[in-house]
């Protein structure tokens, strides 16, 4: 397992991030953490804990009220288009992020926006689809894909932009068992290829075994940040279900069960 050495330069730095919405809801309260290169980070918390709001800050979709996000030491808003290429984002509802009628065209949407030439666009599209195992469906209508395939298509759309970091918001929601396995395999493949993975989920039992680090959020703040085995015991008190009895079983034994590929 790799655990980010905070002495080396961080790929992504979140510094004292705060965000409130009209009406006074404090979505994020002084959130700070670092993400290292090649790390597999899981951010978890119950509904309304601020996970998705945090995710939208990492790609510059939301501007914080206070604090900043740095990518390789530079504030993300200095060159937001470059940052959006490097920090890819897969949203919870895959159907809503599909903007084209065919699989190939949808993957090419990002490279098209970057004004990359057609030959390179095709190359990137084919490679991304090959990586997610959907190359044979390049001409298929996106509506005919299953839930797991749609999510993999969303990942391919991000891969075509050559990102370093891939952020996945609730990647397993609304998926059946084979769908979860497909997506999980995909995430592990990307991590193995060297991508930094930030997986935002409350379904820890599906993925935590593979993670290097776990951040628990509650009411817009980070309440724990450490390797999974050390803070797993605290998960239930923040409303996150774990597959086992934390009072009777050792955390590492429970952690062993936390993968739907096992």
């Amino acid at each position, binding site marked *: 397992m790799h655990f980010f050495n905070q002495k080396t330069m961080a790929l992504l730095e979140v510094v004292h991030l705060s965000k409130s919405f009209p009406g006074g809801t404090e979505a994020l309260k002084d959130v700070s953490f670092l993400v290292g290169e090649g790390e597999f980070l899981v951010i978890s918390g119950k509904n309304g804990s601020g996970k998705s709001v945090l995710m939208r800050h990492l790609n510059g979709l939301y501007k914080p009220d206070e604090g900043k996000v740095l990518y390789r030491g530079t504030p993300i808003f200095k060159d937001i288009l470059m940052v959006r290429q490097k920090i890819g984002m897969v949203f919870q509802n895959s159907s809503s992020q599909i903007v084209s*009628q065919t699989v190939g*065209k949808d993957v090419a949407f*990002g490279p098209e926006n970057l004004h990359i030439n057609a030959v390179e666009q095709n190359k990137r599209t084919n490679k991304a689809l090959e990586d997610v195992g959907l190359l044979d469906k390049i001409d298929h209508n996106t509506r005919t894909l299953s839930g797991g395939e749609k999510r993999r298509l969303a990942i391919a759309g991000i891969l075509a932009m050559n990102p370093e970091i891939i952020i996945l918001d609730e990647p397993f929601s609304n998926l059946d068992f084979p769908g979860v396995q497909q997506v999980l395999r995909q995430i592990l493949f990307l991590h193995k290829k060297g991508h930094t993975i930030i997986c935002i989920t409350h379904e820890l039992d599906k993925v935590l075994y593979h993670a290097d680090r776990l951040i628990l959020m509650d009411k817009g703040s980070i309440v724990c940040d450490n390797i999974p085995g050390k803070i797993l015991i605290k998960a239930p008190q923040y409303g996150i279900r774990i597959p086992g009895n934390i009072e009777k079983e050792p955390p590492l034994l429970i952690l062993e069960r936390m993968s739907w590929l096992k």
Partner: protein
Amino acid sequence: MAEIDLFHYSPVPSPLKNLDPRIKFSLLLLYTVLIYQVHTWGLVLLTAIATILFFSGKPSLKHLLFRGKGILILGILIYFATYGAEKNTITALLSVLRFVTTVLLGMCLISTTLPEEIEKAVYWFLKPLPFISASVIATRIRLTFMFIPDLMETAEKIKEARISRCIQRERNPFKKMTTLIIPLLSSVIERAEVTAFAMEARCYTDKKHYTLKHLTLKDYAAAAVGLGAAGLSILL
């Protein structure tokens, strides 16, 4: 898995499929205007053309029956509305024919043209106009073409949910309508928000660069045939 509906791009080969979207779009606009201007035989000719083109795309019979119901109901409404105003059966039937032909032509365009191609064609038409953000309008039209069928699907799901909760017993038509419209609107807004975020996250800006193919001999020939048929419909 969703099936391909009539209001979606269909992978089935069709003579219209390889035509340049600008030609298809121009002819659609021209025919739509003509449908409401030509005399009876001209209208019959346009309806025949629309019907042949529509069926050349081999539409799914199941979806045809399903969507046909809605079109039939609208057709009946148009018939009675026109008959009520004009008191003439032929005029009322012609109004229905005009409506059906318009729908068929629209479905021909949608089922044979990718929304991205429609976007490019719209951009090409709007680009010369001053004070208009051609790329923004073109993108909006593309997304509309993309999401209208999904909205219809969402509306169907909401309808089913209402039926399962005995909406038939509700006598207040206003309440009946709001229980459909409010969740539908909320779903549209939510979806639009996520789509906008997802597009932005993939570096979408309004300074988009479009590459359009050059028109081929086939495109010019199709335009000539289309214009010839349009001229004939005026003369008839």
